[in-house]
């Protein structure tokens, strides 16, 4: 009989493991630096001055708390659960990514690092990192797959305007996985002076825990806001998952509330029955990549296979290790939405609520459209609207054949 832990919120252990997942699978060159980072983070976490500075920036610079908005027209159209959006797309830089980046760049400063590198898929993490580096006057290099450079051109321009150097990566499928490989290669050569700002709850320990901690502001605000709005906790949480940072930020503060149903939505690309998807939890199995053990899309031998999603931010063959653990514990349900469903949801949200969502978040919208009608009207559903779709406008306009003149 598998036993249920007393709490789902105590992980990871001191070696960075969540059950069999997580850990520190990195080159020896990086190990001492990762241990140093862990120590520096633990000290910062316990330091009221660091926390105070972060809180100030989140409030005055990023614009937190983000609203919890009752989407009335969307709710009526679906005819089931009462749907709230956590409006993290209204943050400065347009997504939840800034929550984590402000924390990490503050930490980089504190550690005396003089250069910051980051990987990015959709460019949201890259833009957030470039923004924080401009604010703190630190040189910034962002690695981005060259396919993503093309499909997320507005974000590339933003990063450059903010003073960051964008390095297109041509290796492999030239998407997020390859950008992360290249960032790790840079870091091995520069680790004594460079801080690697990872954008999601993946990578070697302490990154998955650290990024989660910085993103938990999302769920903590929802908890408070929902108590104010409805006088009780939400019943259902929905968020999209690539690496899984916006989802973890929303989910983690609710993991021990048994009444809260929690659903993560992976990208099913052209369908789970094809080989072109990015649903590592549904279609993958445990393996070791990018510093951690987690669910991965891979062949029989353990060669990593290419992911596919219309959304550059979800186009990754892995997922954060804590999600892998939560899947195996059965605490979180992991489902998926296809490219077509996401594009359909994108359009529905534009027209019903006047909100242009990011293609990543559109996957959460798509699943909300599926599940809300099956739930009773008093079911309080919170969906994390993790990013805005400005960056996707050219791509969607082309796909839908929207005429400019």
């Amino acid at each position, binding site marked *: 009989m598998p036993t249920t832990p007393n709490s789902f919120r105590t992980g990871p252990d001191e*070696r960075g493991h969540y059950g069999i997942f997580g*850990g*520190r*699978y*990195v*080159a*020896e*060159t*990086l*190990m*001492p*630096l990762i241990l140093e980072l862990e120590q520096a983070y633990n000290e910062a976490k316990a330091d009221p001055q660091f926390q105070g500075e972060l809180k100030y920036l989140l409030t005055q610079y990023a614009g937190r708390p983000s609203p919890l908005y009752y989407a009335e027209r969307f709710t009526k159209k679906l005819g089931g659960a009462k749907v709230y959006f956590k409006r993290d797309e209204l943050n400065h830089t347009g997504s939840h990514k800034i929550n984590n980046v402000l924390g990490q760049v503050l930490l980089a400063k504190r550690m005396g690092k003089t250069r910051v590198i980051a990987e990015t898929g959709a460019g949201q993490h890259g833009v957030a990192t470039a923004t924080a580096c401009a604010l703190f006057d630190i040189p910034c290099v962002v690695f981005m797959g060259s396919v993503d450079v093309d499909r997320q051109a507005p974000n590339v321009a933003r990063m450059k305007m903010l003073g960051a150097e964008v390095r297109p990566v041509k*290796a*492999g499928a030239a998407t997020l*996985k390859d950008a992360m*490989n290249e960032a*790790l*290669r840079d870091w*091995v*050569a*520069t*680790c*004594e002076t460079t801080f690697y700002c990872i954008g999601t709850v993946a990578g070697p320990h302490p990154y998955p825990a650290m990024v989660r901690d910085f993103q938990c502001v999302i769920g903590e605000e929802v908890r408070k806001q929902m108590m104010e709005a409805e006088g009780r906790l939400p019943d259902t949480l929905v968020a999209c998952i690539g690496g899984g940072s916006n989802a973890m930020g929303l989910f983690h503060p609710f993991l021990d509330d048994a009444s809260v149903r929690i659903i993560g939505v992976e990208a099913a690309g052209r369908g789970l029955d094809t080989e072109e998807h990015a649903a590592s939890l549904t279609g993958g199995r*445990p*393996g*070791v*990549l*990018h*510093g951690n*053990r987690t669910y*991965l899309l*891979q062949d*029989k*031998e*353990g*060669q*990593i296979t290419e992911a596919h999603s219309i959304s550059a931010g979800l186009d990754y063959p892995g997922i954060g290790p804590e999600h892998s653990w939560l899947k195996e514990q059965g605490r979180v349900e992991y489902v998926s939405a296809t490219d077509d469903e996401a594009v359909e949801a994108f359009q529905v949200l534009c027209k019903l609520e006047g909100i242009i969502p990011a293609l990543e978040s559109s996957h959460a919208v798509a699943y909300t459209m599926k599940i809300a009608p099956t739930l009773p009207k008093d079911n309080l559903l919170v969906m994390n609207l993790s990013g805005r779709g400005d960056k996707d406008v050219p791509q969607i306009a082309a796909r839908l054949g929207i005429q400019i003149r």
Partner: protein
Amino acid sequence: MSRIEKRFAQLKADKRAGLVTYITAGDPDAEISYQILKGLPGAGADLIELGMPFTDPMADGPSIQLAGQRALKAGMTVDKTFDMVRRFRKETGDNDTPILLMGYYNLIYQRGAERFCKDAAAAGVDGFILVDLPPEEADELKPHAAANGLDTVLLTAPTTDDKRLPAVLKFASGFVYFVSVLGITGTKSATEEAVRTHVERIKRHTKLPVGVGFGIRTPEQAAAVARHADAAVVGTAIIDHVKAGLDDKGKAKPELVPGVFAYIKALADGVRGVRKA
């Protein structure tokens, strides 16, 4: 005594350092790769590292990345890598030259550490060098490696300080691999002075032989490393010679294999020219 221990004991008796050569298994295809493997000891290699191609080689520079892609494209697998080693032991009758598998942990994890170690030992493999398996994560592999007589060669780096070294060395056997520069394979080279300082430092902590790699390209550089370390490891520069022997379509030209051997012979001459106390 393992083959690796025996080989280093012999090198010591011969008063010289060893040459460790890296090739990617299956590059540019299984047959040519085997022809190279077969001739390495004759060209002057004292130990052989056989790279297992992986889709995401995070610690490797462009040369070894591309070699891995060529091998995977030509259909290389873990079983075929074992076959190469088995065939080498059988056809050459060479039962003395150590062969180490080098690569990334996921290929081992997918087969299961226990089965992987059994299969590797049965094929005639002597040990592992796993780039992304620091001592902190090595306890899953170590007992199975030991049970099958396989050495686990751990990496140390310039960032591995005196405080951390004992933790790394606790899991190390065969020899210690000192990564002489910060960075990925085949990009920069260490100075002779830096090599000397670090090798002396490591030797204060262990009786194991120390091999030094990353950035060695010329016979002179190999000789400089041989003056201070027990072995010089060359990888990227050999792979570059494999690549130079490919035609426009990626097929091996007749001069590929002899070209690789001529280069390795020059490296070996450099290493063997250094007399040790």
